[in-house]
């Protein structure tokens, strides 16, 4: 089997792909990046927590004009995953306002981005409508 690597280190692959946040142990603020301290309470202790793989689309845009090399149009969104906000693309949907709507229910999905020289496959994530 091809070796796989996630696009970002907060994407956990395997049988049950999900996102992992760094949660501040004192105020429970959640972050996806490497932390020096908590932006909310300045605490320095964090624990890894699994983020819900389903959520609601709180905001979106359909990007029609982007940097060269970025395929357009695509849907960029803000997803509320049971109280944790996540940034991601809405995938497996027609990128037009008739098919994407505020409040729509979505779930995490993963897809291969390509294989590098060493034969490692990168895996990205997006959110697809729950039909």
């Amino acid at each position, binding site marked *: 089997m091809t070796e796989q690597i996630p696009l970002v280190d907060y994407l956990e692959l395997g049988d049950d792909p999900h996102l992992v946040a760094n949660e501040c142990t004192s105020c429970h*603020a959640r972050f996806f990046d*490497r932390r020096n301290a908590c932006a909310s309470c300045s605490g320095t202790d964090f624990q890894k927590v699994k983020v819900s793989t389903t959520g609601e689309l709180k*905001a979106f*845009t359909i990007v029609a004009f*982007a940097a060269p090399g970025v395929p357009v149009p695509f849907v*960029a969104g803000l997803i509320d995953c049971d109280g944790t906000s996540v*940034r991601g693309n809405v995938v497996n949907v027609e990128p037009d306002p008739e098919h994407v709507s*505020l409040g729509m229910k979505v779930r995490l999905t993963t897809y291969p981005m390509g294989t*590098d020289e060493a034969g490692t496959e990168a895996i990205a994530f997006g959110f697809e409508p729950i039909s």
Partner: protein
Amino acid sequence: MAEDVWILGIHMTKFGKHKDLDTVDLAAEAALGALADGGVSMQQMGVLAAGNLMNAAAGIGQQLQKQIGQTGVPVFNVANACATGATALKTAIMAVKSGECDMGLAVGVEKLAGAGLLAGGARKEDSNTWEPSGRYGAVAPVDGRIGTETMPGVFAQIGMEYGHKYGGTSFELFARISEKNHAHSTLNPLAAYQKKFTVEEIMNDIMIAYPNTRPMCSANCDGAAAAVVISDSALKKLSKEQQKRAIKVSASVLTTDPYQEACQILPDVNTLTRNAAEQAYEQAGIGPDDLDLVELHDCFATAELVHYDNLKLCEPGGAVDFFQSGATWRDGKTPVNVSGGLESKGHPIAATGIANIWEVCHHLRGEAGDRQIENAKVGLAHVIGLGSACGVHILEKSAA
């Protein structure tokens, strides 16, 4: 209690393409214009605060001094995203308020004509090996793969988020905000664009990031603006005419974005604006109902809507109804962006946070010509720099 500070002189250049003028030429035109407007000279300035965001390391303050007066006074070169101009002004105001000097000059300048996307405009190619790097351990560039880094896309989501929370928004509603600002711009000879658009023309123009089409985005252009600020006691020693034209800075506030859930996912431009507005109304001792005009940061049509609410021009959640009542047109209850706003006047980044002050001062002095808001006595100017910084100034006509 520190003494009051006034704007003694202020100037903005024509916004647009200035292919024969460099950054220093534009800054000099604005600075010399502001000094002449106030009837004072570079030799009287005790401090210079200057911003030029795209070349922030070049030291625009000292470059400007070398063209118009190397007086040896302290220079603060500031950079604070789109709030750079307001930050320069706030810096000069702080210097005067602190008593370090009686008068100060603030300048903002940018050369942006022809620039495309200012963020997310280029993406690195994927490397040959997937190697995690950076704070997210990303093996490849994420713009376009995990959301968007482009400003039209970020601000589109900010407007859509408001719509999700309160309802009532639509593509057409956002286009109508743009229609208003473009209509206003036809009366502003210094605007980069003075073209009226129908709502259909706006909606059918090139889509950038739904729901923002091209005319709903701020216009990249060249321009500069500058202001001379003065202490109350120094102003009293000047002529009656200078005192009469001086504009009182009733509030000068700069805030950053306090932590909120989601703020590191989609920038929260709301909380820091609300905080700045609340502090400004408190400082000035006036409320939103007292405002005769507002210049707010319509970097995109989707942004203008949320700031009606953030600046408390309407009830919480009531921005859509407020706009639809006609309140923000130039003949409405609270005229917003009678200059044409960033969508048509243009957005030479570091100049914007002083140019909006110029617009308000112009009306308060009764010098705004065809677009004069009659009997304007109080106005508010607002900017947002993503990252984030928010500047709010409240200005009042002189009683003299």
